[in-house]
């Protein structure tokens, strides 16, 4: 992207398709939720030529233009090809797919906005909770806490980076402005990425999969003065609400109301139904999300017609 003056507030999301998952389709739906539920609802998509071409072809150029105010082309390069992630779809099915996240830190330069909320394309914004942050003087914000459906605590590696390690912070939702300190935060993120093996030894986390959660956790640790200070804003201590990859979505009653089938971690053959209304949702089971997209898109079409 040519260097232009960044202005206003908005949401950024990354979407790079692979053989298994149609991320641009997820991004399209996520952007529709942003438009519907937030006041600061300008949306920028960061993608590559191939994914963007497929998006226009599969969704329609007019629809894409209606939802995305900006499209930024950023090729992640070949290093993303080596990052393969194992995904689950229920406790009984899994698959491997390329996980393109190695250029996520470049959002600082790629964003067209002065104040940006970066969200993942599996994160549904169902209310206006995050609007307040655009009126604040925070420089960087991330979720420190998370919980899974039914109030279940996160896995150990999602609380601290190792059993006696530093706090885990989530890169699913990242708020930042264009201040020098924000830039430093993203520079540290890039530095950890470039020295991944070293930091995996230093902080004792598994190096096999490159995870941006770990990069931001290290950056947040440094920013908080190598302890648990509160320079990095934690979205009022509000936990990120995660749907486990082993849970399923039964149905969307409507655009505010989702019914999940939550699995039991100890006895995964046991399930329970859970309904969430108006809560922001991190849908980690991508296939389950994919199965609902037709209904969601029809609901949006019905809402606008």
């Amino acid at each position, binding site marked *: 992207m040519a260097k232009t003056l960044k202005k206003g507030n908005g949401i950024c999301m990354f979407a790079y398709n692979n053989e298994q998952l149609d991320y641009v389709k997820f991004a399209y739906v996520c952007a529709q939720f942003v438009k519907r539920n937030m006041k600061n609802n300008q949306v920028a998509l960061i993608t590559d030529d191939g994914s963007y071409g497929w998006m226009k072809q599969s969704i329609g150029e007019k629809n894409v233009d209606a939802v995305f105010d900006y499209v930024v082309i950023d090729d992640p390069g070949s290093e993303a090809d080596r990052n393969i992630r194992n995904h689950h779809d229920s406790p009984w099915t899994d698959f491997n797919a390329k996980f393109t996240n190695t250029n996520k830190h470049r959002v600082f330069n790629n964003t067209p906005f002065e104040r940006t909320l970066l969200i993942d394309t599996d994160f549904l914004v169902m209310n206006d909770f995050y609007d307040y942050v655009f009126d604040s003087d925070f420089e960087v914000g991330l979720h420190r806490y998370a919980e899974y459906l*039914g109030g279940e605590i996160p896995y150990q590696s999602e609380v601290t980076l190792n059993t006696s390690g530093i706090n885990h912070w989530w890169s699913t939702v990242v708020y930042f402005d264009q201040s020098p300190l924000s830039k430093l935060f993203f520079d540290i993120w890039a530095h950890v990425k470039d020295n991944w093996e070293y930091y995996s030894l230093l902080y004792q986390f598994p190096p096999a999969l490159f995870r941006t959660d770990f990069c931001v956790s290290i950056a947040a640790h440094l920013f908080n003065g190598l302890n648990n200070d509160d320079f990095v804003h934690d979205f009022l201590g509000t936990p990120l609400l995660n749907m486990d990859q082993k849970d399923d979505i039964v149905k969307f*009653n409507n655009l505010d109301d989702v*019914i999940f089938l939550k699995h039991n971690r100890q006895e995964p053959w046991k399930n329970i*139904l*859970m*309904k969430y*209304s108006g*809560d922001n949702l991190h849908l980690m089971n991508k296939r389950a999300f994919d199965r609902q997209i037709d209904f969601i898109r029809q609901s949006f079409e019905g809402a606008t017609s």
Partner: protein
Amino acid sequence: MDERLERALEFANYRITLSNQKRTVRQRMSVLTTIHYKSGVFHANPQTISFVKALVDSGKESSIILDTKENPIEIEDLNDLLDTLLSSYTEAANEYKVQLDKIKKARNIKSLMDW
């Protein structure tokens, strides 16, 4: 399976789902009553509301109040904070009641889920 046992298990499932939904609604109330004000974080709960009201009643227009993270926040207009807290609490409590009433009326899992 014995029909009595089947019905008992069905009821147990309903009760588990009911208690989960109640917890979800309570959590939603907690999120809705957490407010950001002048760079501080406050819970719009009876304790905070009473404290701010006590300051207002004692004739103060401004004050320094510790937020939930124990940071001192300079509040220039206590009445404005009080209004914000009250409106947040009232809105959240209303939604809580509506949702809880709906849950209480639901006598099976299907109606709990608004299926």
